[in-house]
């Protein structure tokens, strides 16, 4: 993409992200959620947009990250089974040092465990293509929620509470806001870098013609596994952060919300334009803003509004915002177009 065009988007979004919690203190949670949505869309696009593998189960890694984080946050200092037993179990109080140590290790491990899980799952599901891959991954996410709901050690259907933040509500809100914003920025910067390396070309080659890519000797399984692991790493981290924001981790609605966040990440990417770096960002901003506005001013009609947006998008505007811009102004995106008669 044209560097000036990119900078024109980078700068205002970065400034907005830094000042938003102070300018709009009443909307901190909504804007923090916006950054999680940006992260969702960016990470879904690694697989669905850049590589052509439409996963409907990426939300699985959100839950994996959420549970991993809380287990590390609690498990370093208390016995998990006793902590969760009888919905609250032992009344354990974490010291400040224990809280922050647990949080840091929990966030890191949420990404690592999610990435490892993706690598292991990849060996089984990458044999699937098209709708079979989509449904297969969706099945994993749904099954995970149901399984966690029966596992007593982690609180089963009652869930598990995260350690209580040792400070004021404002400080907690600000900390998790900037962690969400930082995670989204880190995801964006990482993807911006890797899409410019050989990795970016190889995953695009897999998307456009996997058989040809294999015929050229590309390690397609390796690239697919790494792509999904990168995606899972960041989604896992977002799970850790979101779990700490909600305070209680419940398997179906909070950890593995397949029909809400799991679908949103696809819809946002399609709206912004899949297979582009900025498309998922723009799609997430537009989608989340519309969602919050309808939730606030048109309560009861919010799902209808989102449904209409998705239908318009997939029926009349499949290329999404960035796809439309690239078609309209190819030269702005470094695409050389030659007069037809000169090429024949």
């Amino acid at each position, binding site marked *: 993409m044209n560097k000036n065009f990119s900078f024109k988007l980078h700068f205002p979004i970065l400034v907005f992200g830094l000042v938003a919690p102070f300018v709009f203190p009443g909307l901190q949670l909504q804007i923090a959620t916006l950054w999680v949505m940006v992260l969702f869309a960016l990470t879904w696009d690694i697989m669905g947009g850049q590589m052509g593998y439409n996963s409907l189960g990426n939300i699985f890694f959100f839950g994996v990250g959420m549970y991993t984080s809380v287990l590390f946050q609690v498990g370093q200092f208390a016995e998990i089974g006793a902590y969760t037993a009888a919905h609250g179990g032992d009344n354990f109080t974490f010291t400040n040092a224990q809280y922050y140590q647990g949080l840091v290790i929990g966030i890191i491990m949420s990404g690592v465990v999610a990435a490892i899980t993706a690598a292991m799952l990849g060996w089984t599901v990458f044999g699937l293509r098209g709708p079979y891959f989509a449904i297969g991954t969706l099945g994993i996410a749904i099954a995970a929620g149901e399984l966690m709901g029966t596992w007593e050690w982690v609180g089963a259907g009652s869930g598990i509470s995260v350690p209580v933040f040792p400070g004021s509500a404002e400080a907690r809100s600000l900390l998790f806001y900037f962690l969400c914003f930082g995670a989204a920025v880190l995801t964006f910067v990482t993807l911006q870098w*890797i899409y*410019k*390396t*050989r*990795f*970016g*070309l*190889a995953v*695009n*080659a897999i998307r*456009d*013609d996997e*058989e*040809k*890519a*294999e*015929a*050229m*000797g*590309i*390690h*397609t399984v*390796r*690239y697919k596994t*790494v792509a999904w692991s990168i995606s899972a790493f960041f989604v896992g981290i977002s799970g850790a952060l979101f779990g700490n924001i909600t305070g209680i981790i419940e398997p179906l609605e909070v950890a593995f919300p397949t029909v809400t966040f799991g679908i949103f990440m696809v819809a946002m990417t399609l709206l912004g334009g899949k297979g582009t770096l900025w498309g998922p960002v723009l799609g997430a901003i537009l989608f989340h803003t519309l969602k919050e506005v309808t939730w606030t001013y048109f309560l009861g009609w919010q799902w209808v509004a989102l449904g209409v947006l998705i239908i318009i998008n997939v029926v009349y505007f499949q290329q999404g915002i960035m796809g439309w811009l690239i078609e309209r102004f190819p030269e702005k995106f470094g*695409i*050389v*177009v*030659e007069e*037809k008669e000169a*090429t*024949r």
Partner: protein
Amino acid sequence: MTNYVIEVEDVSKSFGGVVANHGISLKVPDGMITGLIGPNGSGKTTLFNSIVGYHPIDEGSIKFKGEEISKLRVPQIARRGLLRTFQQTRIYSNMNCIENMLISIPHRRMKFADMFGEREDRETMEEVERLLDFVGLYEKRRLRSGDLSFGQQKLLEFAMALMNKPEVLLLDEPTAGINPTLINGLIDRLRRANEEFGITLFVIEHNMRVIMNMAESIYCLAHGEMLAHGSPDEIQNDQSVIDAYLGAH
């Protein structure tokens, strides 16, 4: 003594009740151009697909430089230096010519960290430009490859294969659909790839003028079985080949 890079022995392949290849044996000598001809439906492309790993064979053995490869997957075989092009041109039409070439770098010695390596380093770009110049596409290097003419797309696919530095290249009807004025240029480049880059070529071709002029040794298939093998002169004068195939040309 002749070294054979590809050795196919008693290979059979069926799709349900249809026998595509039956008891095929052939040898492709190192550093030469070998042809494979036969009427439509004679099993030529199936044999190519079996050699490069697309179809698991039912029976027989396929060796590349002495190593059994019939159980290997497509990318594993490609990384050993045995590459193919397709009957219908397969390029990345949404990418420009340079990007198509960059995808085609050799992957055989690529380490894990190389996945995130710089894709347009000076050495690679020099090679890309040299090969695009070799096939006459240098001026169109930044064009979206889907906007190239069919003949130019064939040349790009050939350049992509060369970029991969194969030891053996299987070409499936390289001149099919190409404007006659471009065919001579393509033949010249195939010969130069063989002579200057030392690439062994194994070519399926329906254009008899092309294959008879280019190949040093030709195999002829009919109805999934080996009909004949010999020099171009021997093949042209073989009565069974004339009856089954050449008579129609």
